[in-house]
């Protein structure tokens, strides 16, 4: 055993010396390889953590949201629909939700404005998300003016600012009383934005959804399962950012591996010829090439994964921020909870380390079986 270990160490020593003779090329290769793994792992960490956090956060989302559709659009839903929905067997509670979007022309940001049923403060009071607080430079007990649909300005007293820990759900939220909401948008008392339902037995949700469509054909029920599936699917590998990064990274990796697999350089062939001439076996040469591939791919893989972890969970995802921010004026400053999937890391390992190592061995085998004299003369 000791002899075997010593042999491997000698071959690794030789391999590292051989790699250092082509220092420039191999450092460049190491950097590109690390960057590829870093990019792929960053996207994987980011999307997986986001999906897990969405699943945990939204598991208490409404069981069914009922929207009214008119002319292909989501329209306010009449109050009388509440009565129809209450009569459906299995429905526990029915509530009309009042929410909409408010464009703040001062800074050019969009807010989500809501009037919760049990808003704890009085008319003229407001609760704001920390993103709004940051963008508008307002804090608790300050005043924030909002414009009504007819151009009148209403000064709201900021009673509360949501904690920065809740930015992922509340960054752009404004909470006002029902009276203020209707005053701002001129919404009639007979209208809600949509209706939420609680169902007694979770197994009956799809049956209740079917009954809703039968009773109110101009409505669309959206179940909690669909809400959760949305966040499973929108950051799917086929989504824009994933496809863009994956395609670039995979193509770059194929080029790197292809370069290795398509043949050896004249220097590398000569080296193999000399080694054979001084008595190295074919198996020793293949072992050396295996270690060469393993040293580069393993070092790049581990470094890339670690850098990606730091990038996504410590910085947090600073390179993705400009992409995710887009044209948003208001962007949540959230730090994802580090959920990592060992299965994904294993997949990345088998997709990067194994093909590269194999791609290094194959052309060496071709060179190693040729007569050393002809290899050295080529």
């Amino acid at each position, binding site marked *: 055993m000791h002899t075997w270990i010593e042999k491997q160490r000698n071959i690794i*020593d030789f391999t590292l010396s051989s790699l250092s003779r082509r220092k420039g090329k191999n450092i460049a290769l190491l950097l590109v390889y690390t960057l590829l793994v870093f990019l792929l792992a960053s996207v994987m960490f980011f999307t997986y953590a986001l999906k897990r956090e969405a699943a945990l956060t939204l598991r208490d989302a409404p069981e069914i949201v009922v929207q009214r559709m008119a002319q292909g659009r989501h329209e306010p839903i009449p109050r009388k629909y509440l009565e129809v929905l209450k009569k459906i067997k299995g429905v526990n509670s029915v509530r009309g939700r009042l929410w909409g979007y408010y464009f703040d022309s001062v800074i050019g940001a969009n807010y989500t404005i809501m009037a919760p049923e049990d808003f704890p403060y009085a008319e003229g009071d407001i609760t704001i998300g920390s993103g709004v607080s940051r963008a508008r430079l307002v804090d608790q007990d300050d005043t924030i003016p909002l414009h009504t649909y007819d151009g009148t300005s209403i000064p709201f007293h900021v009673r509360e600012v949501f904690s920065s820990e*809740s930015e992922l759900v509340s960054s752009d939220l404004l909470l006002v009383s029902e009276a203020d909401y209707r005053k701002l948008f001129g919404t009639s008392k007979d209208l809600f934005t949509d209706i939420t339902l609680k169902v007694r037995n979770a197994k009956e949700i799809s049956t209740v959804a079917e009954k809703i469509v039968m009773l109110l054909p101009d409505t669309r029920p959206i179940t909690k399962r669909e809400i959760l599936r949305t966040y499973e699917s929108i950051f799917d590998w086929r989504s824009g950012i994933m496809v863009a990064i994956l395609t670039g990274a995979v193509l770059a990796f194929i080029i790197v591996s292809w370069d290795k697999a398509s043949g050896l350089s004249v220097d590398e062939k000569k080296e193999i010829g000399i080694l054979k001439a001084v008595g190295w076996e074919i198996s020793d040469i293949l072992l050396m090439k295996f270690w060469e591939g393993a040293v580069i791919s393993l070092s790049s893989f581990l470094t890339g994964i670690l850098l990606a972890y730091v990038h996504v969970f410590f910085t947090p995802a600073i390179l993705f921020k400009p992409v995710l921010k887009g044209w948003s004026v208001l962007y949540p400053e959230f730090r994802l*909870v580090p959920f990592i999937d060992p299965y994904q890391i294993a997949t990345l390992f088998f997709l990067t380390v194994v093909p590269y190592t194999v791609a290094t061995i194959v052309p060496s085998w071709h060179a190693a079986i040729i007569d050393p004299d002809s290899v050295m003369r080529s």
Partner: protein
Amino acid sequence: MRKSSFLFVYLAACSLLLAAAFAHAQYQQNRRSPELRENGELVRTLELTDLCLFTEARYTRHPSLADFDAPFQDHPCSLEHFPSGSLIMPNWRNAENHAHMD
């Protein structure tokens, strides 16, 4: 020190750091679970449906409630033009509840 020893030390250090990353992830999940619970509570009391990831367009602010044609319905021949719209995938899994566009 032999060159192979340097390599082994480097790979061992990286592997240790990777193990530390898993431990850190587990620690953070435990430490921040009250925060996740509070966010869940906010979702429950306010009956929220979406994460606040993109605020530039209504269909990316609330993707679970948006129509497939929302990016294109502002005027005839309207094109999807918000950057975040190109980042996320249309919510095809919930297609059965959406109006057919043909």
